[in-house]
Each structure stands twice: as structure tokens, then as C-alpha cells.
């Protein structure tokens, strides 16, 4: 009896899926409430802006794109349900989620249904699960951190480092990637300082880093916590270079930390301040439309939408399987797809590569110190 029931359900699902392809349906599943709301909203708005532009320019293969929104509430269980719902609604591709704990769960559902999913997550694990339907929109921290540690060891001559990290799945991912990598460059971790999610008082953490005798502090916190950390570090005049990822030196952090952000440096995959006209232009339009400065998550969402458009038009048909197949081993240049903003490529696991930057904050602006090649 179960078998009959299941097959009935499968037939019903298949029917609704085929009839739904009259227009190109995209499911946007992101964190619109809960702890991930800031990141999720950025990503969502990036996706929206791109598809509005695409629709205004005639859509994908002449068909208009419709986006259906789902709020994952930053809850893995809900995110799984929402991906399921998007698939039941017959979407062509999925954009989101940003938080890795959600993506790890809901990507299994997209995989079962064979729907390509463009995630904003950077946790290394995501592309290590042999899922042929997951694609990153920014490379994982296991790719970014080696670029940075190499720079720290070779260009800055750092030997001893204190690590301040958020004790969440996000921070843990960066922390373990960093711990794995430093050994290769002869850097020693002499203080390991985990912090809480949404922590407000960083005086104890700054104090520990300051008294640890390190040459530099590696900071792997989310934007707002980074800003609080930088302010406290300035107050206690920490006197050490602070190095991190996008979340330490992003535009939002600079806005929040004010002049406390000056001197902080780090590696960024995507930056609104990169000397790339297409990126600067996109950021200006975004700011005009949504009344706030986009962060890297917005750029991730924006480029995901254009990647979907360009690859679909390359394929010549709106077919989820064909999209997923074409993405593997693909190189997309700005010349053929201006919307991706920078040349980008995806490997067989859905991991992506792109040029990235090592920047320092000077006078409240990101200044590019080095361009790091894709790895």
C-alpha cells in the first residue's frame, strides 16, 4: 500500500513540476529572521536585484523569471522544509541558504530532487559531501585561508599568532581551516580564544590576546562582533596587527567600528572597494535601490543569479539537470557573462575559484595591498 501511495505522490509531483515551467521559477531560501537575518537579507536583495535586471532585459531565453521567497528562520529544520516546499512548487534552481548549518541539511533535499542549489555558505564541508547539485557563490574557507596564511608568513613574517573566533559553525569552520594551515607555514598559535555568538563585551578577549605575546591576532568573527572587538582593541591599545577575512574588514565593519577599523587587514574574496568598475557600479545601484551598502553576501546573491542566467542560455533550455551538469568544470568569464563581475570557475565538487585580494583598512577605506591568484 505504501508503494502505491508513494507512486501516486510521485506522479502528482512530476505533473506539477512539468506544468510549472511556463516561466522560470527560482526558489530563494534564505535567513530572513533569526540570527542570520542580516546576511540572508543581503543575499536575498542581491538575487532580487539581478533578476529584476535580467527580467528588464528580456528574461532568460525570452522567459520571465519569477522568484518565490522562503524564510529559513536561520533554523536548519525549517530550511529543510522550505527547500522541500520550493521543490514541491517546481523551481528550476535554488539560491541560498547562507548559514552553513542550514545548507548542510537542506542540500540533501535538493540533491534528492536533482535541483541545482547556489549557496552562500563558506564552510569547507559543503563541497566535500559528493553532492553534484551544490554550487558555491564564494569559495570555501579552506581555499581562502591558505591564501591568507601564506601571505601572513611570507610577506609579514608572522611567527606567533592569537586566534579569536566565534564559537559557532561559521567560526569553527574558519578556525579549523586556520589551525590546519598554520603548521605548513611555521606559524604557532599561542592563544586560542573562542567567543559567543552575539557577544557584546569583548574586554576579556582583547586582554587575553594582548597579553599572549603574539605577533598578530587572527580574528574570525561575524561583522558586528568584529566591530565590537576592534573598538575594544583600540581602547586597550592592543598594538598588534589584526588580520581576518571579509567579516573583519567589510564595509559594514568599517561603518560600525569607525576609526578603530583602521589598520585591520585581511583577505577578501569579494569587495565593493575592489578596483573593478563592474563591481563598483553594481554596489552603487544596489545602494540606490535598497538604501544600504551591500556586503559580500549581496554580491554572492547577485553573481549567483547571473551565473544561472548565463549557463541556462548557454544550454539553450531551462533544464535543472542540464544546468547542474554544465556548471561542473565551468569557467565563466566577464566577457561572456558581465553579471558575474569577475572571472570565475567551478570544479567537479561545486567549489569555486576566483581571484581575491589582500586589503588593509586605511582612513576608513579598504586599500588593496595584493591581488592573490585563484587556487
Amino acid at each position: 500500500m505504501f508503494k502505491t501511495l508513494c507512486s501516486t505522490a510521485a506522479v502528482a509531483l512530476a505533473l506539477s513540476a512539468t506544468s510549472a515551467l511556463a516561466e522560470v521559477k527560482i526558489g530563494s531560501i534564505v535567513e530572513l529572521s533569526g540570527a542570520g537575518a542580516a546576511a540572508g537579507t543581503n543575499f536575498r536583495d542581491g538575487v532580487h536585484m539581478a533578476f529584476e535586471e535580467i527580467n528588464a532585459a528580456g528574461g532568460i531565453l525570452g522567459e520571465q523569471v519569477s522568484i518565490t521567497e522562503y524564510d529559513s528562520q536561520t533554523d536548519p529544520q525549517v530550511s529543510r522544509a522550505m527547500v522541500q516546499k520550493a521543490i514541491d512548487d517546481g523551481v528550476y534552481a535554488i539560491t541560498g541558504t547562507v548559514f552553513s548549518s542550514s545548507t548542510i541539511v537542506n542540500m540533501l533535499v535538493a540533491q534528492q530532487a536533482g535541483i541545482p542549489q547556489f549557496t552562500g555558505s563558506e564552510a569547507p564541508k559543503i563541497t566535500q559531501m559528493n553532492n553534484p547539485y551544490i554550487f558555491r557563490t564564494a569559495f570555501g574557507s579552506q581555499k581562502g585561508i591558505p591564501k591568507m596564511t601564506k601571505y601572513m608568513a611570507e610577506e609579514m613574517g608572522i611567527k606567533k599568532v592569537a586566534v579569536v573566533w566565534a564559537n559557532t559553525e561559521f567560526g569553527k569552520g574558519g578556525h579549523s581551516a586556520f589551525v590546519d594551515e598554520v603548521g605548513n607555514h611555521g606559524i604557532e598559535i599561542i592563544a586560542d580564544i573562542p567567543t559567543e555568538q552575539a557577544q557584546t563585551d569583548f574586554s576579556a578577549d582583547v586582554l587575553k590576546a594582548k597579553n599572549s605575546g603574539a605577533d598578530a591576532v587572527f580574528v574570525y568573527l561575524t561583522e558586528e562582533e568584529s566591530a565590537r572587538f576592534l573598538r575594544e582593541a583600540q581602547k586597550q591599545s592592543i598594538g598588534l596587527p589584526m588580520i581576518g577575512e571579509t567579516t573583519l574588514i567589510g564595509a559594514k565593519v568599517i561603518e560600525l567600528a569607525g576609526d578603530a577599523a583602521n589598520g585591520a587587514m585581511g583577505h577578501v574574496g569579494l569587495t565593493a572597494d575592489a578596483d573593478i568598475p563592474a563591481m563598483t557600479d553594481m554596489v552603487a545601484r544596489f545602494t540606490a535601490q535598497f538604501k544600504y551598502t551591500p556586503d559580500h553576501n549581496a554580491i554572492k546573491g547577485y553573481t549567483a543569479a547571473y551565473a544561472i542566467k548565463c549557463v541556462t542560455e548557454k544550454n539553450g533550455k531551462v533544464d535543472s539537470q542540464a544546468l547542474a551538469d554544465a556548471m561542473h568544470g565551468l569557467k565563466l568569464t566577464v566577457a561572456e557573462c558581465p553579471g558575474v563581475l569577475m572571472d570565475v570557475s567551478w570544479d567537479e565538487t561545486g567549489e569555486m575559484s576566483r581571484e581575491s585580494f589582500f586589503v588593509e583598512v586605511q582612513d576608513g577605506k579598504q586599500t588593496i595591498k595584493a591581488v592573490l591568484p585563484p587556487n
Partner: protein
Amino acid sequence: MKHLKLLLLSLAIGALVVAPIGQGNYIIYTLCSWLLFSISAMGLNLTLGYAGQVSLAQAGFMGIGAYITALMTLAGIHWIVAAGVSISTCFAVGLLLGYPALRVQHHFLAFVTLAFNTLLFLVLRNEEEITGGSFGLVGMPRPSFFGISTNSNLAFYYFSLACFLTAVAVMWWILRSPWGRSFKALRENPIRAESLGLKIRRQTLLAFAIGSAFGGLAGAMQAPLVQFIEPGSFALVHSLKILLMVVVGGSGYFYGPMLGAAVVILLPEVLRFTEGYYLIIYSALVIVLMVFSPNGLIGAGQKIWTKFRPKHEERRDMQKGFQL
């Protein structure tokens, strides 16, 4: 009247059996979540609605259940054993936690459970050797019974429904037993109940422990349903969410928690058209409901029902029927 009740009951069970047929996976998944949260809320209702104590750790108990089940089933032990261990552990933890807290009267159980839930979150996150830390545990197998696997969503739904009906039957039996009836006495007049020889503290403690054990069962079902657990799913906010389910539905009513769980889980869906505003609307509705009907939706329903009913009718029977 007995016949009417039986008829309604079998209608309800029939509806639950046919509900998922022909539905998409999402609907079935949501129905499973509803069954699971109903069980958890039913347990909390015993603590809150019948014994009058606020527990803010129901999600924590679900976490204990979910982690025990996940670890045991990942080690190859059958789900039924894992669920048994989960339920008994939650019962034992409930006793340990409740005993000292209930020594001091008033809301101290609320405070202790609040602290416990947050401590549990920290332990689950920090002891990553065992619990997987903030990355959580992935890939718990779904159980199979007598060679029938519950891997498909529909099969898992019927498995959840079986658990749910068992839990309902147990709760029904508890409340009908002489022991359960004494709760009513406690609630109506604690001083009189005590003078009749009821041990208030022992009763309340057991109610809390049993309520927690229901949370353990719900957790044991959550692990194979989501096939992923992480500490954040069992944080304090989720305990508050379950508390809202009980009170919105109607605490102290047998069917209150099920109604409340349905409202909390389905309302985002119903209010979808309001986009980002649904949580605002939802929380405003809860406040309005509490102001006008502290007995929740069932209480409000009864209020309206009795208003429109002529007074000389046999009201009691109608009320019972309504609760279904």
C-alpha cells in the same frame, strides 16, 4: 454521548490517516513536524496546564532525546531501543532537576529550567568529541520495522502518527487514572487537596518528569525526521516556542497543545502573503489572545460557543465535544 465521542475520535484518526495522501513532500514533512511538536507540547501541558509549573526547558529535553537517539542509531542500535533510553533519561533528568527546584515554591522551576536549557546548549556545543559540536550530527538512519523501512516521507509520517497516537493514549490514560485526576483537585483547590492527603510536591515533580519524558520522545523522532541535529535547534528560544504552543492552544485542555502546535507551525504558511511581517502579526495576535482569552484558543472557542448557546442546553457535553 459516548457514541458521539467515539465517532468524532475515529473521524479525527481517519482524517490523520488520509491527510498526507497525494500531498507533496513539503506538506508531509510539515505534518510530521506538527505531530512531533504536538507530543512535546502535550508533555509540557502536563507540567504547565495540569500541575501549574512553568518549564522553560522542553526544547532542552527534546535535545537530550534527539542526541541520545542520534548517537545510538548512528552506532547501529535500533531506534526503538534508542527511543526507550531517550525517554527514560529525560524522565530521570526531570526528577533530578525538579526535586531541588520544587523544594522552594513559586516560579523557581521556571528559573532552574531556564538555566538548565542554556547550560545544556553550551555542553552540546562544547563537548564536540561526543556531540559533534556546532557542526552537529548528520545522517541519522530512519528506522525500519519488520522489514518495512520508513525512508520515504509518507512511511515516516505513518511512523510518526503511530508514535503520536501512542503518546496521546498514554497521556489520556495518565489523566484518567486516579493519580491524574488528583491534578484537577490540585488545580482547583490546593489546600483542600493537601488536607485530603495529596502530596503536592511529589505530584508536581512526577508531572514535570513525565512531561519531560514526552519531550524526550519528540526528540527521538526529530533526529530521524530531520536527519541533522545541532545545538541551536534546542536553545532557549525553542523552549519558549513550545511554551507558546501550549498556551496559545489552551493550557490545561487535552487538545490544546495539538491545536497550538498546528497554529505555530502552520501560521507562517497562512501569513505568507504578508512577507516579512508574519512574526509581527503572529506576536501581536498572541498578545491580543492573552488579553482576551488567557485560556488560549480553546478557551476563546468555548467562550464564544457558550455565548451563542441557549443557557438551558446541556453545556458540559457540548464542551467536551467541542474540544475534539
